[in-house]
C-alpha cells in the first residue's frame, strides 16, 4: 500500500493543527532546534489563548506572549538565555500587557517528569526535587505526597499531555518518520506525550533512508499530524550539523523588546512584515546564513542493521 503523505506548508499545518485555546509544546530541545518558524506563523495567524509548554523556550515564548497569543505558560524558565529577563513575559505577568497570563512554575526536571508521565499514560511521577520551594505553592498542579513505603515526603508531578508538540528535526520522510540528533532536551518525551506532533524538518528524505535507522525514529507515525519542510526553520537557535546559533539576534531582540513599542516594531519587521519563513530568511540575509552554516561535517559511523 502507498504511504500517506502528511507534507504540509507551515501555514496549513498551523492553521489546521494549532487551534485557539490549544496547549502547545514548543522548544523541547532547550536552546537548540527551537521551532521559531512555527512560532512566527502562529503569531501571523493571530492564534489566541494558547497554553505554551516547554522547559526554557529561549526567546520564543517571550515573542508569543508579547504578540498576545498566550493565556498560560507551563515552563521552567522564560526569558532570553544569554541576555536575561524576557521583557514581554515581565509585562504580561506584572501588568497584564498585552494580556494577563497564568504561569505554572516548573523546574527542568519536573517539566521533564510531567511530559514523561504524560508519555507513559501515567497519572504522575513522584520526585524528591522541589521540596521546600515556592514552586509547590505557586504551581497548584503539584501535590505533596508521602512515599507509601518509607513515609518520606515527595512531590507528585502530574502528567502533561500537550494537544500538540511542534518539533524541529534534521530530517523526516513525508509520513513523519523523523530523525533528531544533537541536543535532545525533553523532545522525545514531548513528542510521545502530545496527542499529535507537527514535524518541522530541515530535509525531506525518502522513507527508506529514515527507516534505515528505526531506533532513531523520534515518534511513531500515528502521532504525526503534519510534516513541514522548512530549512533553517529553527533559526536563530542552532541545529546540529546544519547551522550554529545567531547570538547577535538574541542580543538585539533583548534590546529592541525592552518597550512595548520596541517589541511591536521588532514584530512588524521580523514576523508580521514577512509572509512566511522565506521572508524572514531574506531579511536575515544570505551572509548571516552563510556565516551560521556548518561547514565542517562530523559524521557518525553507520549502524549495520543487517539481519541475514
Amino acid at each position, binding site marked *: 500500500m502507498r504511504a500517506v503523505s502528511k507534507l504540509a506548508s507551515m501555514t496549513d499545518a498551523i492553521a489546521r493543527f494549532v487551534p485557539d485555546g490549544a496547549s502547545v509544546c514548543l522548544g523541547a530541545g*532547550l536552546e537548540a532546534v527551537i521551532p521559531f518558524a512555527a512560532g512566527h506563523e502562529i503569531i501571523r495567524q493571530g492564534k489566541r489563548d494558547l497554553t505554551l509548554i516547554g522547559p526554557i523556550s529561549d526567546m520564543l515564548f517571550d515573542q508569543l506572549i508579547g504578540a498576545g497569543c498566550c493565556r498560560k505558560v507551563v515552563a521552567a524558565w522564560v526569558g532570553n538565555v544569554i541576555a536575561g529577563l524576557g521583557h514581554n513575559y515581565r509585562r504580561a505577568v506584572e501588568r497584564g500587557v498585552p494580556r494577563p497570563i497564568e504561569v505554572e512554575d516548573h*523546574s527542568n526536571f519536573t517539566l521533564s517528569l510531567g511530559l514523561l508521565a504524560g508519555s507513559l499514560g501515567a497519572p504522575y511521577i513522584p520526585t524528591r526535587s522541589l521540596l521546600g520551594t515556592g514552586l509547590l505553592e505557586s504551581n497548584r498542579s503539584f501535590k505533596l505526597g508521602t512515599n507509601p513505603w518509607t513515609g518520606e515526603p515527595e512531590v507528585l508531578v502530574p502528567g502533561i499531555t500537550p494537544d500538540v508538540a511542534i518539533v524541529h528535526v534534521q530530517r523526516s520522510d513525508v509520513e513523519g518518520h523523523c530523525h533528531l540528533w544533537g541536543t*535532545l532536551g525533553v523532545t522525545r518525551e514531548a513528542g510521545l506525550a502530545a496527542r499529535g506532533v507537527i514535524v518541522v524538518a530541515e530535509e525531506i528524505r525518502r522513507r527508506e533512508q529514515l527507516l534505515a535507522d528505526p531506533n532513531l525514529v523520534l515518534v511513531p507515525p500515528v502521532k504525526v499530524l503534519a510534516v513541514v519542510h522548512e530549512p533553517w526553520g529553527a533559526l536563530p537557535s542552532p541545529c546540529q550539523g546544519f547551522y550554529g546559533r545567531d547570538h547577535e539576534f538574541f542580543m538585539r531582540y533583548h534590546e529592541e523588546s525592552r518597550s512595548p513599542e520596541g517589541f511591536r516594531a521588532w514584530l512588524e519587521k521580523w514576523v508580521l512584515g514577512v509572509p512566511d519563513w522565506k521572508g524572514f530568511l531574506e531579511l536575515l540575509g544570505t551572509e548571516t546564513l552563510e556565516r551560521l552554516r556548518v561547514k565542517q561535517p562530523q559524521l557518525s559511523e553507520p549502524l549495520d542493521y543487517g539481519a541475514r
Partner: protein
Amino acid sequence: MTYTDRELMVIAAAREIRDGELVFVGMRLPLLAFALAKRTHAPRALGLFENGIVREQPAPDTPFTMSDPPNIAGALWSTSTGNIMALLQQGLVEMGFIGGAEVDRYGNLNTSYIGDWKHPTVKLPGSGGGADIASLAKRFVIIMPQEKHRFRERVDYITSPGHGDGGDWRRKVGLRGGGPSALITTLGVFRFHPETKEAYLASFHPGQSVESVRAQTGWDLKVALDVAPTPEPSAPELEIVRASDPEGFWTR
C-alpha cells in the same frame, strides 16, 4: 597583577570542584571555573549540562549556551534532560553551580518572583534546572554579584532551596541533597555554619574588607574568626581563564 571581579569569582569557584567529581556546570562563570579546575587540580572531574550533555572537557570555544553545537560534538554522552537530572536524583552528582537574583542568610535563592508571587513587582525567568540542582546535588555553590538589595534577610520566594530557615530544615522538608556549601560573590566567599546553616563570611576579596562586605549584605552578617582575604589569582590561573574567554564576554 590586575584582574576583574568576575575572574576572581571564576577562580574561587574552580577551587570548589574536587577531582573526580560529577559537576553540574551550567554556563557562564561556572563553565569557566570547570575549565580551570580541569586544567589544574581536578583533571578527572566530569561536567553535566541539563540539556543532556556529559563532557570531559569544555568545548574548545566557550559556547554561549549549553546547546550550542560545539558543546555536543565531542561529548561523552548526549541524552535527554530527564536522564541527566536522573543522575542528580540518584545521588550521583557531587556538586553543582547556581546563580540567583536574590539570596538570603540561609542560602535560599529566588529566581522567580520579586514581591508577592501572586502580584509580583518583578517576574524573573524561573528555576530552569536550578531548583533541581539545589534540591538534589550533594552540595552546591552559589555564584552571584553582591548588592545589598539582593542579599536579603529572607527571600520573597524560594526557587532553589538552600538551608530554609536553618538547622535541619532540609532534612525536615525531605530534601536529600546537602544544600549550599559556599556562596561566591563579587566581594567575598561565604560558607555555612555546620549547625545553624547560616551563611558567614569566610574571606573577602582583595581590596574589600569585612565592613565593605557587610555594607552590601542585607542581614546581620556573621564573620569567621579566621576571616582573611581571598587568595589572589595566580598568573597561570588567570591565563587559563583568559584563554577560555578570550573576548572577555563573561569575565570583563
